């Protein structure tokens, strides 16, 4: 039995469009900031994971490509990926790298460093990406943030893609830092409010 599609079942189109736009103009990366704040706000204010459960376009993209198009071995993820150590460890690592990226952006804003028009994949590989940069009306820092944020997004997409191929389509959701964090917030909020 097929379930009725709702408008939010098509949000994968937005996720895909976003990734493609970043090839043409890096400044579009700022848009994806929405996918960063919306899940957190829903978790903090509403105390649920409606973002993951309904709206996340990235998760939909993986279930579409891995599930519908079959680009997945559909094997169980190894036990260690599910472990709390790995999930929380990856969350901490991810955010450390994220704040490092913010720091570098700050340095460019402050004029202490020049703009680097590269996208860093998997926190290591610097890919030339200058074609997607056509100048900005604002400070170079605005562009640096876009490059940094797009790097984060591309990295997580690549990781998600690899685990999609190897394991189940949405394996990324097992260790996705946003998912782990929203679940943590929900757990904390729930324990807190049920004690009252």
């Amino acid at each position, binding site marked *: 039995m097929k379930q009725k599609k709702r408008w939010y079942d098509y949000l994968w189109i937005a996720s895909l469009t976003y990734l493609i736009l970043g090839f043409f103009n890096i400044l579009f990366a700022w848009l994806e900031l929405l996918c960063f704040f919306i899940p957190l706000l829903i*978790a903090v204010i509403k105390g*649920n994971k409606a973002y993951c459960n309904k709206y996340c376009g990235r*998760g939909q993209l993986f279930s579409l490509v891995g599930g519908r198009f079959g680009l997945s071995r*559909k094997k169980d993820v190894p036990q260690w990926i599910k472990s709390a150590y790995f999930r929380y460890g990856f969350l901490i690592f991810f955010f450390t790298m994220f704040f490092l990226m913010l720091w570098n952006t700050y340095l460019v804003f402050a004029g202490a460093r020049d703009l680097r028009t590269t996208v860093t994949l998997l926190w290591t590989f610097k890919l030339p990406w200058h074609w997607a940069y056509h100048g900005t009306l604002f400070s170079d820092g605005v562009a640096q943030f876009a490059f940094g944020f797009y790097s984060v997004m591309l990295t997580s997409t690549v990781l998600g893609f690899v685990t999609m191929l190897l394991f189940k389509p949405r394996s990324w959701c097992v260790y996705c830092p946003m998912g782990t964090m929203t*679940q943590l917030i929900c*757990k904390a909020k729930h324990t807190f409010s049920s004690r009252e």
Partner: protein
Amino acid sequence: MAKRKATINQKQCVACGCCMKVCPRGAIAIPNGVCAQVDKGLCVGCGLCARECPASVIALEEVAE
């Protein structure tokens, strides 16, 4: 005859909601975003959720009637 019902290992559930999306009976909910719960009264043991769960934490267990 014993029936099969979905049982979730809640400790390892990541509350992603994949199971909820595929369940044809709407038997799964994720209250407060903590972890998924199966309404055993609605579950028909089809196993779609177990196949979908990225963390593979759903098992179909026989329950005596």
